[in-house]
């Protein structure tokens, strides 16, 4: 970079990115960019796009190569030293199983579809930013796989993440979320993922996961996560620039964008419900509660900061946000109880929180835990003490929009299940919340297409009518599912950590 003396970073970046574009004359702009009209968004001047970061390919490759060198050194070292034995507990990995099955495929989808933006947006500035994000997302997909690959060799639930994402009931929650985004138009995708997901919610997803990894001895996941987040901060700038750009280009864009913010906040928020359960229940060593994370990363930073900024354009905080706020004391408990009840059909295990964890939960959730949720766990514990294990018999009813079982409660009443429904073309569809019903009602023709896992089982499309047949079709292997205590992972973990040398000598012989 010997030339910086003449061109500033900004000018050089512009010369090396957007200035590569030219106005076509052998084909029309319509033919060249056929997808950017149908959503009703009006762009008058693509040149007004502000490049949110200024990384040219040479600098990009240099810094990304350095990041990956550091990351893979950590992965190799951890594997060589059998670092998995120093985790806080084997059950910690349930969080990472959920992550690999549920989140990694989303990174991949983002990779593919930011490639779509890199082709289909008219403006060269956002196209280049999208291209960088596209290959960043491929990086995240692969570094996640490579990070968790070592655990896969010794523990259950990680072996068939890709097939499971396409088939397993609880994974249709994140899958349908992303399918929803990429099946939308390019601008909606940009707001759905670039803004709502990357900027509004990604911190809520990643930072607690990665701090949790750090706290539970999972150095590779922490390293991968923070390394991925360093790219994520670029993606956040893209998302924020995207929304400001759309809002500034035409006043007619404002209500369209507001509708997308309303939709995608709630859609994304429902996906993070799985994170809530993970954070409060799956980590043996707790980092922060869902409620705390929500208050910090969403209420303080987004509602208190970002939305004040967007007020300028006439944008208001997302519709139904008050329900999310009211739910912060309930969400993780309702979700994890559901996972606990249905984990016979999951590729992770669950268990009753230990006494110390229950005390922590009571402390974090003084208004709700002891009143509403501790009694459930006491009951579950009593069943275990009697030699049993509670599992829900039968299949749950799923929300047609978010596809989470209908387990959430009425706003203001934690003891009554919330049920909404709409009728479309003579058929009844059920929803877990006002937010999900509202989303369905604005695009029923889209949401009726959803591949609903429970319906599919009943229709005989999932390997057969019995639970073992469905589990086989899911790719679930012995030891992946059910109760953690006494599971294969648990037994192995105990054997590996039995202190007598006998263990070492017997395993050596094998």
């Amino acid at each position, binding site marked *: 970079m010997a030339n910086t003396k003449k061109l500033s970073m900004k000018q050089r970046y512009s010369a090396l990115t957007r200035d590569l574009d030219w106005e076509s004359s052998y084909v029309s702009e319509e033919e060249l960019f056929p997808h950017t009209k149908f959503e009703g968004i009006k762009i008058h001047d693509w040149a007004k796009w502000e490049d949110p970061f200024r990384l040219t390919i040479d600098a990009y490759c240099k*810094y990304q190569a350095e990041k990956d060198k550091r990351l893979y050194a950590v992965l190799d070292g951890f594997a060589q030293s059998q670092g998995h034995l120093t985790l806080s507990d084997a059950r910690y990995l349930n969080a990472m199983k959920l992550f690999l099955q549920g989140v990694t495929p989303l990174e991949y989808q983002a990779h593919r579809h930011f490639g779509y933006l890199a082709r289909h947006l008219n403006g060269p500035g956002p196209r280049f930013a999208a291209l960088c994000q596209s290959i960043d997302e491929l990086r995240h997909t692969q570094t996640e796989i490579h990070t968790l690959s070592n655990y896969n060799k010794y523990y259950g639930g990680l072996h068939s993440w890709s097939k499971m994402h396409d088939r397993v009931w609880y994974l249709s929650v994140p899958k349908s979320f992303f399918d929803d985004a990429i099946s939308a138009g390019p601008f909606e995708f940009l707001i759905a993922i670039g803004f709502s997901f990357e900027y509004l919610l990604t911190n809520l997803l990643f930072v607690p996961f990665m701090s949790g990894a*750090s*706290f539970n001895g999972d150095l590779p996941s922490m390293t991968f996560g923070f390394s991925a987040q360093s790219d*994520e901060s670029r993606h956040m700038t893209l998302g924020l620039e995207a929304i400001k750009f759309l809002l500034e280009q035409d006043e007619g864009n404002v209500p369209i964008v507001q509708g997308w913010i309303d939709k995608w906040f709630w859609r994304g928020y429902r996906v993070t419900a799985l994170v809530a359960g993970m954070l409060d229940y799956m980590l043996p060593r707790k980092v922060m509660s869902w409620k705390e994370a929500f208050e910090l990363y969403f209420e303080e930073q*987004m509602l208190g*900061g970002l939305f*004040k*900024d967007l007020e300028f354009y006439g944008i208001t905080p997302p519709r139904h946000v008050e329900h999310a706020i009211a739910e912060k004391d309930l969400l993780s408990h309702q979700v994890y109880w559901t996972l606990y009840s249905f984990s016979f059909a999951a590729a992770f295990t669950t268990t009753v929180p230990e006494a110390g964890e229950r005390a922590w939960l009571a402390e974090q959730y003084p208004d709700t835990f002891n009143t509403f949720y501790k009694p459930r766990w006491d009951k579950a514990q009593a069943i275990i003490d009697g030699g049993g294990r509670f599992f829900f018999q039968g299949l749950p009813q799923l929300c047609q929009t978010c596809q989470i079982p209908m387990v959430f409660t009425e706003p203001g009443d934690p003891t009554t299940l919330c049920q909404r429904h709409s009728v479309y073309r003579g058929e009844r569809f059920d929803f877990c919340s006002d937010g999900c019903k509202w989303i369905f009602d604005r695009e029923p023709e889209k949401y009726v297409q959803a591949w609903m896992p429970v319906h599919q089982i009943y229709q005989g499309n999932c390997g057969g009518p019995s639970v073992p047949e469905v589990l086989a079709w899911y790719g679930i292997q012995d030891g992946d599912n059910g109760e953690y205590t006494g599971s294969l992972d648990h037994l192995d973990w105990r054997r590996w950590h039995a202190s007598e040398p006998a263990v070492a000598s017997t395993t050596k012989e094998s």
Partner: protein
Amino acid sequence: MTSEATDVRKVGVDLQEATEDTRRVVEAIERDNEDATVSYLPGLVKIQAPGRLVVRRQTVEDLLGRPWETHEFQLAIVSYYGHIAEWDDDEIVIKWDH
């Protein structure tokens, strides 16, 4: 510094705690942003400041004792909130627009 002291929204940046270089960057930020508060989560340093936060190349270079491009901030940053108003050769500025 700012007249509208009544409602100064915070901005912030989270950095990886991992390396010696990052620690110097944190020091530089503290030096250039007197109102900044620094807190720690596992693996993470959170820096917050009211209204505006700046990372200056010169200060980082003074502390590191070597040349440092602002692009190198990529290696340390985990997340931020606010708007990246400027990212050029000499400084990175995070603030809210409106």
